[in-house]
């Protein structure tokens, strides 16, 4: 790195420029990742918090299962509950509706989850913990309580019926609406009032049954909670477009860094030939070139991450934004790796430099 450090100082304008570009791309990637994480949490946190190792949805005759259209009739529920190997089966009803605090006209979109209360044998679970014990009560996720400005003891009106807030719990969301829990009976009635069948829409199952056999027999599909997220249309389309944007930014980052170092290395091809003529090993020249790229990437990405942390903290108050290692450090590491790969394209100039050209007079 003897020459590399000195070149970084000597051509600091050029390196500051590329470092700034890397920092800006890091800000874009970090911001988009945080936003994606935030939007994803507002889409799926309620689903991921359901109990069970697999979620069972109705398998339609044509197309894929969907949380929005799934209905599990009582015989399918009974078959799953009785299937050998099943240790726990919790029918859950999910529908979206609107709610308001008594005396307030503003309606707020909510996701109604009909779930039984947790038993003493149940694993600790955020959704079950929120379930009320009485049919005229509801449990509010933190988001629902904030949106409705409601506290324990307040009365809420949901599709023409009043309920008392029994508890406020974890921050759970479903398809961008905050989760509110009801007893299965209350949920069934509410579902019917909104035009639904009143049947549970999902079953959370644990154990080791013959998943495929039971699913085929009941015209259902059993998937892990993560895999079942594809049955959430809003999440699928949202994460697809945001993921594509992030992937494109990664590609742009690799291309920009690669193009910069290709041009930079070609500009110093004659210097590389001189160093080789003086006896430099190709390995030391490669180390220098990659070291330079790593320094630029580290500084650029570091500055970008600081900006993301700042923006993220501010944006988190107004936007669904997740500031975590997964949305900052992970994308940063991918950018560093792709940036180095881009810089690696320039190495051909280093490895193929002919020391004999240093003897020429064309310099």
């Amino acid at each position: 790195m003897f020459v590399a450090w000195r070149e970084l100082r000597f051509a600091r304008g050029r390196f500051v420029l590329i470092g700034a570009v890397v920092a800006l791309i890091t800000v874009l990637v970090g911001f988009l990742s945080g936003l994606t994480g935030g939007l994803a949490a507002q889409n799926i946190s309620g689903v991921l918090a359901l109990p069970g190792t697999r979620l069972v949805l109705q398998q339609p005759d044509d197309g894929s299962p969907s949380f929005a259209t799934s209905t599990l009739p009582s015989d399918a529920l009974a078959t799953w509950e009785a299937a050998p190997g099943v240790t726990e089966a919790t029918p859950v009803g999910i529908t979206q509706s609107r709610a308001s605090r008594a005396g307030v006209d503003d309606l707020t979109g909510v996701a109604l989850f009909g779930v039984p209360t947790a038993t003493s044998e149940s694993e600790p679970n955020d959704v079950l913990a929120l379930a009320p014990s009485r049919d005229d009560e509801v449990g509010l996720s933190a988001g629902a309580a904030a949106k409705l400005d409601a506290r324990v003891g307040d009365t809420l009106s949901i599709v023409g019926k009043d309920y008392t807030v029994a508890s406020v719990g974890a921050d759970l969301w479903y398809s961008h609406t905050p989760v509110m829990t009801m007893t299965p009976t209350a949920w069934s009635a509410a579902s019917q009032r909104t035009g639904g069948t009143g049947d549970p829409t999902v079953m959370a199952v644990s154990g080791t049954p013959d998943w495929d056999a039971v699913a085929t027999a009941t015209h259902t599909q059993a998937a892990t909670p993560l895999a079942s997220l594809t049955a959430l249309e809003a999440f699928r389309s949202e994460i697809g477009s945001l993921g594509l944007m992030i992937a494109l930014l990664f590609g742009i980052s690799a291309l920009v860094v690669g193009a910069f170092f290709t041009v930079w290395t070609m500009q110093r091809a004659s210097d590389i030939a001189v160093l080789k003529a003086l006896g430099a090993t190709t390995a030391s020249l490669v180390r220098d070139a990659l070291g330079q790229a790593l320094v630029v990437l580290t500084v650029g990405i570091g500055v970008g991450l600081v900006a993301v942390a700042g923006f993220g903290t501010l944006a988190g108050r107004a936007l669904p934004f997740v500031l975590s290692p997964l949305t900052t450090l992970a994308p940063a590491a991918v950018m560093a790796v792709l940036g180095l790969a881009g810089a690696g394209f320039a190495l051909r100039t280093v490895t193929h430099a002919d020391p004999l050209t240093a003897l020429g007079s064309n310099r």
Partner: protein
Amino acid sequence: MIDLRDVTLTFPDGDQRITAVDHVNLRGLDGQVTGITGPSGSGKSSLLAVAATLIRPDSGHVLIGEGADVIDAAALSSTNAAALRRERIGIVFQQSNLLPALTAREQLLVMAHLGGRQSRAERTTIESRVDDLLDAVGLSTQAHKRPHQLSGGQRQRVAIARGLVHSPDVLVVDEPTSALDQERGAEIMRLIARLTHERNTATLLVTHDLVHRDTLDDLVTIVDGRVVASIG
């Protein structure tokens, strides 16, 4: 000492090969400047490239050193040839070929950082010679300057110091005065001769300009790749 024995070098030219160096025998002795001259295209720079191990000859031997220490550079792989240049051969190019990002002092220090397996002690040895050499070429007060802040003659002096900083057995010099005026050219030639004698280096120097003949200990003339005259 450097001893080129029956060296032949050819280059591809369409379907055929042209002979740049044709069965040349040449010996450069320690503490002496051996000039190589000849008309353009005579093969003198090609011969210098062979001596500097920048290219392998088709046949012949390039013996560097003496006694048990002798090594045939013509038989070395490119990696080993690079190691030989790092340790036992100094090169001064026609243009100074200094690295624009480095100061004069760093142009010499870089020789201790070219890779390979130099020990810390070897590096320290090179680093300890840097100031002496800059002083020897009259640039101790210009050590902090980068190439664009130096004159052509000063740049060539730095290049000479760089060629000698690792105490090579052999110094190969390619037309060092071609970019300089008469007065500065004479200074550079005298400097090379003085350092060659002081440091007991075997110097091969290609020149087309015989104005400075008096600074050469030997002169070899090459025409069409062959040695046609040798004057001691």
